[in-house]
Structures are given as C-alpha cells and as structure tokens.
C-alpha cells in the first residue's frame, strides 16, 4: 500500500500481529522520482496491545541487524543473544520461553522497553522486515549481515554444556577408575632365577 503527499511516500507492511509503516522521500539528488524511497524520514511499528515503536532510519537498521541474524540462527536451532555494540536494539531468548526484544531510547531518562514476543510474533516481525528489505521501492542500501552457514563451534552451542561434557568427563572417570584398580592389584610374584646346573665331573684319561 502506498500513500503519497506531493513527494512524501509512506509504505505499509502488514502482518497479523504487527504493522510496519515507513515514511520517506525519493532522493532527487541521484535522480530518483515517483514511488522510489531513497531517504527514510521515519518509521513506526505497531504491535497489538503494545506501545507504538518509532524511530529514524538508524533505529530501523539496528532492528534489522539483530532480528534477521537471530532468526537465521533459530532455524539452525541456536538460541543466543544478538546485539550490536552502541546500537539501541538487543534480542535474545526469554527465560520464560519466547523471545526478549530490548529497545533503548535515545531520549534521556527513558528506561529501556522490553518486549516479550512469542514464536508467532517473532515470525511476523521477520516477515515485515523481509517485505521491507525486498520491496523494490526501497532504493537505499540497508547494511544487513549476509546469512552464512554456521561452523561446528557455533553449532556446538545448541548442545547444553552438561551434555557436551558428559562424554569426555565420563571417559576420563572410567580411565581414572581403571588405572586405580590396576594399581591396587598385587604385583605378580617374581619367579626364582634358575640356578645354573653344576658342571659334570670330567673323566681323567689313563
């Protein structure tokens, strides 16, 4: 859906639980016109039953920079915190299940806003962000990390530490117990050294 007033564009992306509205202008300095949106002047994200989120382009980019990699890791079964140093948005697993989205306001004396999202709401958020970044009318670069395959070290994170340590610790324990039992065994009796046979008397000639 597009609403335009003179040059100003407003793009709306809807899902069941949220609506993302992005406002901006075509960047005429590089020859953009019509429905193109080369400058984002503001955006807002409406959640059902939650406060309205608003911000500038940097905030939207910060949101995309943590939410999309978080979703990519979830597909591989990895649930961990995502944040970018100095950026106002963090996302991670919520201790009670679901996901915790933390937004820090740039306004002084405003406490951070924490939102508890379930899996369906996270999927809705990812979909509106996908719709935005793939919309051909958005004609400005959005620095979003490329999804990459994960290495063995990162994949090990999805296995709880106690399960990761069970096999090596178990093996080490069995080895230690076996070694102790072997040490408890009495050393085998040393057989007496065989005595050399006495030389046979030699018969004298004559």
């Amino acid at each position, binding site marked *: 859906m597009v609403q335009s007033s003179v040059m100003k564009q407003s793009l709306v992306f809807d899902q069941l639980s949220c609506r993302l509205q992005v406002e901006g202008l075509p960047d005429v300095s590089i020859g953009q016109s019509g429905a193109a949106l080369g400058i984002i002047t503001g955006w807002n994200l409406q959640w059902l039953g939650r406060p309205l989120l608003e911000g500038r382009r940097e905030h939207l980019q910060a949101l995309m920079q943590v939410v999309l990699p978080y979703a*990519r890791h*979830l597909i591989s079964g990895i649930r961990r915190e995502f944040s970018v140093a100095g950026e106002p948005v963090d996302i991670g697993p919520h201790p009670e299940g679901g996901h915790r989205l933390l937004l820090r306001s740039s306004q002084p004396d405003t406490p951070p806003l924490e939102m508890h999202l379930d*899996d369906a709401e996270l999927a809705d958020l990812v979909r509106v962000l996908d719709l935005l970044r793939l919309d051909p009318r958005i004609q400005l670069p959005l620095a979003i990390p490329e999804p990459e395959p*994960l290495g063995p070290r990162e994949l090990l994170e999805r296995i709880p530490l106690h399960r990761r340590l069970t096999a090596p610790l178990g093996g080490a324990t069995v080895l230690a117990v076996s070694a102790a039992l072997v040490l408890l065994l009495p050393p085998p009796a040393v057989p007496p050294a065989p005595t050399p046979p006495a030389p046979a008397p030699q018969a004298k000639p004559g």
Partner: protein
Amino acid sequence: MANDISEAANPDRVSRPLPRRGLERLDLMLLCMEALDLNGGEAMVWMSEQLGYGGLFPNRVELWKRRCHNPLRRTCRRGEVPVDETDALIRILCVMADRLYPMLRSLLSSSEPEEVASERWALFQGRLEELVQERMNPRRSGVQKLLDPKDGATQRLQLVQGLSLCAGHGGFERIKASLMDAVA
C-alpha cells in the same frame, strides 16, 4: 529474484551442493508441509510448474527422486544433488511455507487457547508420524528420535519454527545458509 544480488556476493557458497545433513533437513521440512496440507504432494508439483521448474522436475517421480537423497529414507539414493535442483526445492519450500503461513503461525502462537493449540499439534504430529513411518527407515536413529514422544516434540517444534522463519522469498537465503551448516 530479489536475492540474486546477495547470491552473487558469495559465489563459493552458492556453487557448493547441500551436505547430506542439509538434504535430510530439507526433505523433513517438505514432509512437514505435506503433514500440514493434505494435498501437499500435489501442491508441490503444481508449485514447481508455477515457479518454472518444469524442466528440472517434469513429473512427481523426478521430484521424489531428488527428495530420496535424504539418508533417512527407506529407499535412499546416493550421490550429490546439483545446486540448481536443491535451490529449486528450497524455493518450493519457501513458497509453500508462505502459502501455509497462517497454519504455521497458529501452531506457534501462545495466544491460542491451550486446548486448541494441543489439538492442532496432535493433528500435525499424527499426520507427520504417518508420513515418517510410511517413507523413512525406522532403523535409523534420526527417525526413531523424530517419532519419540519427548525428543520428537522439540524437533517438530524446531521444524515448524524454521518453516515460519523461511516463509516467502525473504526466507530463501536464511534457510539455504542453515541447510549448508557444518556438521557439529
């Protein structure tokens, strides 16, 4: 397609075929789609034609043969699947997940009444179990784990969550990167 630019940025990854573990997960996700949609098998063939993959998969047998590279299958095929064919299967998966997104969402939503959510999961689990028992090798530990009431629940939730996050064209890169993961 919109992701052609990003694919061009990393030609090495794009040209690598999916590992066996990736083929296994891809087939299981397609199986989940069939469990959610009673006509999923037909829909897959139709979707393949709609997306212009009639040359790669001219009929359902060819589609089935590619899916049989899943090592958990009863009739497992050896060898690698060419990248263009796995890409086509991933795109079919993303479009089907997009079409069935309301069902995926309803399974994941915590705002649904507990009884309704339980019934939905039970229905999905029953259909998936039927399909798994019909097509997969029950002697494989991966199949036994998927059918296990406790361990299988976590895996089924992860499959459904993965499908919800890869629905639509925007999900292609995410799911492909995930299917290319190293073996832990």
